[in-house]
């Protein structure tokens, strides 16, 4: 492992240790308050960061398997939420089979196949498999919902994994993943904190009543600053490019967040699942990344590969 990758991981685990100690001290100082949710949230962050660290430091086969499992859990959570037709038993299984195949293209670095496999081949194949069963009722509805799930949880998320196999020094990929994921998560947190402190003007009250213009602007500015700070260290991006990428991640992270909120509102649930105690489901954590990952990937690819 390169020294810079080690340093980045040490910083991440350091922050977690600080957070865990802080929550311990705070719960000792005011034991009358209920700290369960915050403690759960931080405990889950430990798991997320451990899995994340494994995903970017292990050999390619293991690393891609971890990313594929993340897609699997996300697709499973999505399909558990939406109504599916009983007759679509086999098409649903085929949608799952797309996961190992998509990550296999990444493993052999077949870039053009990685790009078209889901938007073209899976897109055309799933309705064909559904039509063979011959159930016309809700056909379009079911096909669209299945496509939406595969595109977001498999295609979009697999862009994070493709970063790890981009050509360059061995640490290039992992550092790019750290840059993308840390910026996306920090953007979420920054928007929340800015909104909580200064938020007045609601952006889209019907979808997400807590989202404010102040939170959005403050969050995006923070993310742009962080991108400028980290861009030169972790990525091949120049100063200006980093700031623009920060803007992109800030804005599209917000969009991913509210789009997934709209999906949950449509279905009538608050959290997408219970997989990550304190956070909700895995989609609640990946929502921003669904937008930031492909966009970051393609801008980066256009500029430097």
């Amino acid at each position, binding site marked *: 492992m390169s020294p810079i990758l080690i340093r980045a991981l040490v910083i991440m685990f350091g922050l977690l240790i600080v957070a865990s100690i802080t929550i311990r001290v705070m719960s000792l100082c005011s034991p009358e308050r209920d700290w369960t949710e915050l403690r759960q949230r931080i405990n889950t962050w430990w798991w997320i960061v451990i899995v994340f660290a494994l995903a970017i430091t292990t050999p390619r086969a293991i690393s891609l398997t971890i990313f594929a499992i993340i897609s699997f859990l996300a697709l*499973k959570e999505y399909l*558990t939420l939406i109504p599916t037709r*009983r007759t679509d*038993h086999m098409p649903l*299984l085929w949608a*799952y089979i797309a996961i190992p195949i998509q990550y296999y293209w990444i493993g052999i670095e077949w870039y053009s196949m990685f790009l078209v496999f889901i938007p073209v081949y899976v897109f055309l194949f799933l309705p064909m498999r559904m039509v063979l069963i011959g159930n016309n009722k809700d056909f379009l509805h079911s096909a669209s919902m299945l496509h939406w799930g595969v595109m977001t949880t498999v295609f979009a998320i697999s862009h994070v994994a493709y970063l790890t196999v981009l050509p360059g020094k061995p640490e290039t990929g992992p550092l790019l993943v750290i840059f993308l994921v840390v910026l996306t998560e920090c953007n979420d947190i920054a928007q929340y904190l800015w909104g909580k402190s200064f938020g007045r003007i609601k952006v889209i009250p019907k979808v997400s009543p807590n989202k404010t213009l102040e939170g959005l602007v403050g969050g995006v500015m923070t993310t742009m600053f962080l991108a400028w700070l980290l861009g030169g260290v972790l990525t091949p991006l120049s100063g200006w490019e980093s700031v623009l990428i920060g803007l992109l991640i800030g804005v599209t992270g917000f969009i991913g967040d509210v789009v997934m909120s709209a999906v949950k509102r449509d279905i009538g649930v608050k959290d997408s699942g*219970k*997989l990550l105690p304190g956070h909700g489901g895995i989609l609640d954590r990946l929502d921003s990344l669904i937008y930031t990952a492909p966009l970051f990937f393609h801008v980066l690819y256009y500029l430097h590969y």
Partner: protein
Amino acid sequence: MNRLLRLLFVVLIAYPVVLAWLGVSVANRKRLPIKGPGIIIANHNSHLDLLTLLTLFPLSKVHLVHPAAAADYFLKNGWIAWFATRVVGIIPVVRGGDPKQSNPLAGCIQALQEGKILILFPEGTRGEPERLSEFKSGLWYLCQKFPEVPVTPVFMHGLGRAMGKGQWIPVPFFIDVYVDEPVYCHADKAVFISDLKQRFEVLQNNAQGRES
């Protein structure tokens, strides 16, 4: 030997299918009996129901857990019969026979006397996914004989969707399991059955996020 086979069955089949392929979250697992005799009653939509129930118990207790299952379905073929009785450990119940000649519940009675944990599906057969059918009265006859044995209702949500009747490959969905407070037998059959039915309906409403 049977004990080893059952352990292997749970570790090599039930755990991977239920815990890794599907994924289960259990509410109130502590309400399950950890020692026999006990009766678990559950809704029945899929062959996966039994696999799921087996994963709820610690491995050291799995050999105590026995499902009552239809003799006409599971004993009709030599291989399936061997697998069902030796590996899964089913207690065969003869459906639709003449109760005067032989007691269909004899196996269940013996199991409870031996201090085992019995799994019963009071709906009898696998019904439509996520829909409860009428409860059979065998349960009441059985617990009349064992008034001190706790009857624990367990509601499983999503298994009929993962692999319903006629399907043989489970589709991955997250599954919810709800364990209710144990109940004891009531002298009036109708009261007992309708009370249990009501409990299941409450659990089902919770599972579907509706107000009960």
